[in-house]
């Protein structure tokens, strides 16, 4: 028994365990050291958590697009970050027009809904065009090729929108009703963060029930399970793939406006980092798995916002907040090494992985 067990452990596994163990020890030690010094009070932690939740729910919304496309086409839609960017960037002009005409302050709810709709429509349009022009002809190509195409499309979209709207940062107008804070049992939450969390939660719930409950959602799940069989069952594969891109585009557009409301500016390159983070989130949760993407996004947002202060501060590292992206990517690599199926992912067959 022991002999057989011994045989299956390779030196690489040992190295991996050592690395993993070392990182765990570091995290544990850092956290205890931070908590022992007591630099941060409970209110600090609460703020970190709320910020992490808000940021994480935006990641989760973007991750939805990645995970659904991966589930159905088995490709990383690298250009999804640009789908995320183009929505709020276009909606900025609507928002600015509303702001300068005073409409925004008079009817804030209506204008916010309009902004959301414009953003979602633009993102959806771009996502569908992307699928039609760049991805559809490559369905049967070797796997590297769609990935390179997606990278190319990502550059193309970035610089198209840069050409359209210019290369500067545009400041999103301030929505008065989202300013200030609300108090819950003695805890203060910034209003826009609460709105971001609530809106993202509603959208995710809607999306999830759409995929789980409706006929269309069932068909999408069937296609991502097995294309050939579902085609035999009379499901229109092309239509389902387009629907997937539509859903991904809509959630990315909505996430974009939330992002713009939170960080107050838009830029043609704004999609890159959130895009990679959202992909990380999708992998964290188990790619192809919709609840997994939500969970992964929120988890990543929390780790990014709490992690630097919790793990690194105690280790005596200067300016730990600079390393928050490194924490996110380290998480990605660790998950890929130790649990490539993600937190919620089912076991992937060789064909899928």
């Amino acid at each position, binding site marked *: 028994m022991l002999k057989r067990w011994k045989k299956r452990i390779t030196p690489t596994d040992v190295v991996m365990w050592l690395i993993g163990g070392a990182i765990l020890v570091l995290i544990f030690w850092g956290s205890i050291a931070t908590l022992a010094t007591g630099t941060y009070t409970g209110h600090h932690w609460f703020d970190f958590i709320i910020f992490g939740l808000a940021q994480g729910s935006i990641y989760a919304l973007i991750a939805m697009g990645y995970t659904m496309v991966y589930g159905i086409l088995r490709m990383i839609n690298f250009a999804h970050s640009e789908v995320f960017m183009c929505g709020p960037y276009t909606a900025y002009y609507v928002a600015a027009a509303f702001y300068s005409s005073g409409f925004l302050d008079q009817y804030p709810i209506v204008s916010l809904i309009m902004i959301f709709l414009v953003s979602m429509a633009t993102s959806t349009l771009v996502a569908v065009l992307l699928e039609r022009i760049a991805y559809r002809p490559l369905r049967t190509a070797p796997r590297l090729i769609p990935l390179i*195409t997606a990278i190319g499309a990502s550059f193309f979209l970035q610089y198209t929108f840069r050409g359209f709207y210019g290369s500067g940062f545009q400041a999103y107008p301030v929505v008065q009703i989202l300013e200030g804070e609300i108090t819950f049992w003695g805890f203060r939450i910034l209003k826009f963060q609460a709105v971001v969390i609530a809106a993202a939660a509603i959208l995710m719930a809607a999306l999830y029930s759409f995929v789980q409950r409706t006929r269309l959602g069932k068909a999408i799940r069937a296609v991502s399970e097995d294309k050939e069989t579902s085609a035999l069952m009379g499901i229109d594969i092309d239509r389902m793939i387009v629907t997937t891109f539509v859903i991904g585009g809509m959630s990315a557009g909505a996430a974009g406006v939330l992002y713009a409301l939170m960080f107050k500016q838009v830029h043609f390159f704004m999609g890159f980092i959130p895009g990679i983070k959202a992909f990380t989130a999708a992998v964290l949760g188990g790619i192809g798995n919709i609840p997994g993407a939500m969970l992964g996004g929120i988890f990543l947002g929390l780790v990014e916002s709490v992690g630097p202060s919790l793990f690194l501060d105690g280790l005596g590292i200067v300016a730990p907040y600079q390393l928050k992206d490194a924490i996110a990517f380290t998480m990605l*690599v660790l998950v890929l090494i130790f649990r490539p199926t993600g937190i919620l992912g089912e076991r992937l067959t060789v064909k899928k992985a």
Partner: protein
Amino acid sequence: MKQAIKIGLIGGVVEILLSLIGMVEAFSQRDIVAHIISMGHTLLFIVALFMGYLAAKRTPRTGSLQILSNSFISGLIVGGLVSLLVIVGSLINLRKVFVNAMPVLYELLTFKQGTQIGVFLLLGAGALSGALAGLFFLSPKLIRRVLLISLGSIVGAGVLQDLLRPTFALWGPLAIINEWLFTANGLTIQGAIGLFLLISAFSLFWFRKGAAIQTGFQQLPPAPQRILKMTGILILVFILLILPRVLGLFLSEVLTIVGLYVLLGLGLNIVVGYAGLLDLGYVAFFAIGSYTVAVLTSPELGFFSLSFWQALPLVIVMGVFSGVLLGTPVLKMRGDYLAIATLGFGEIIRILVLSDFLRPWLGGAQGIGKIPKAFIGGFEFAGPQQIYYLILAGCLLVIFISLRLRDSRLGRAWMAVREDEDVAQAMGINLVATKLLAFATGAGFSALSGAIFASKLGSVYPHSFNVMISINIVCVIIVGGMGNIPGVIVGAIALVGLPELLREFAEYRLFVYGAALVAMMLLRPEGLWPEAVHRRELHEEEGDGEGSESPPESKPD
């Protein structure tokens, strides 16, 4: 008919896009033929012509009238859509949203004739170019090829005028060409016509007699054939050696950048092209190479202060070591997962280098300066004209090693792993060792490139090592043709060299780059100069022996 309308609409949308992102405007500053046609107009015409050609090609029936009318219609629609843009632009101020919708743009689009006349001119121009494309489609193959080459070379000469003019000026007797061919902006009229005639005559001659010359060469006995080949190689080496003297400072700088990318590309070619492991974090090793040199040699930090040559072996060792270190965790991953994990590594390295945490050792955001240049005896590799030789030597060394590795047992093991990991393992290939060796070799080459890069700039900054570099290198390999060494060189020239030469259009560089990548993957996924096996693989389903349809590109390099 329906197809023609559809193609015309696509063409029109493309032209509107090009106009609104400001490309037409920027390109109009450079004339192809002085005062006759600018690059911006050429761009628009090329799109219209291409769409007309496409419409002609897609016509189901073969009647020539049908073909002509279809290409005419698609050209007309292209013109119509652009004039629609002009009309809308004259009624509404589009500038509030689209920064580039300036009055200058409309002037350009209407040929400075005002909206009313301009719209008709546009329609006419569109229809004309559509009809021309149809005629072109109907003409015999020989004429088509000759026309394509000679018109292409005029456009090429116009686009690359800033490159050609100083190059000719450096050579005393050739300087006359400048006066004959170029004005301050664009070709002269007699120059353009002369060039057209010259190139047409030459290409006509080549298409008639070229095959005969080739077979003549092959019929020669082996000994003189070998002598001819050797002279060819000697001439090539001679040209490579005198290149920086001939080309001057700016072009040598471009050459060194291309050379660095060739080095990087060759290294990644081993990982991606041979072993099939998609690495999107390759810049990490480049950064490690650069920073190792910086830390070892720079007096600014004052740890070691070695010379470049003393540091170099350590750099390579460091590169190989980091290749093994970063390769070990990802051994079991495949495909996309591997790509993302390596991308993560690349970013982690950059963020660590940038952070204040490692600042005492790596300089943080300000980087490390005062890296000494390399010396051999009294010869300092100071400017680009001298560094070039260092890079050339590096490239030749790496090419040699790559070629030897490719044909070795290890190379065959890599290719087996690339084709099918499980089968390779079943055949007794040690996956761990094979993959790690691929990562280590690639990383070693990359570190070498990084070392030269650091010594070239004299300083290193974390911002030079972002993820775009990794993606660029992957694209160089894929565009050039995966797994093939000449392909990597062609890819580096096409993707790195050309954009460097067209610096004033830098704003549109990545736009064109992205569009080219997508188009490339859709139309020619095997790359410009593919490896034979890979090419066959990608065209499997189209039936074997279809090589005649698209002959291998004979790009000069």
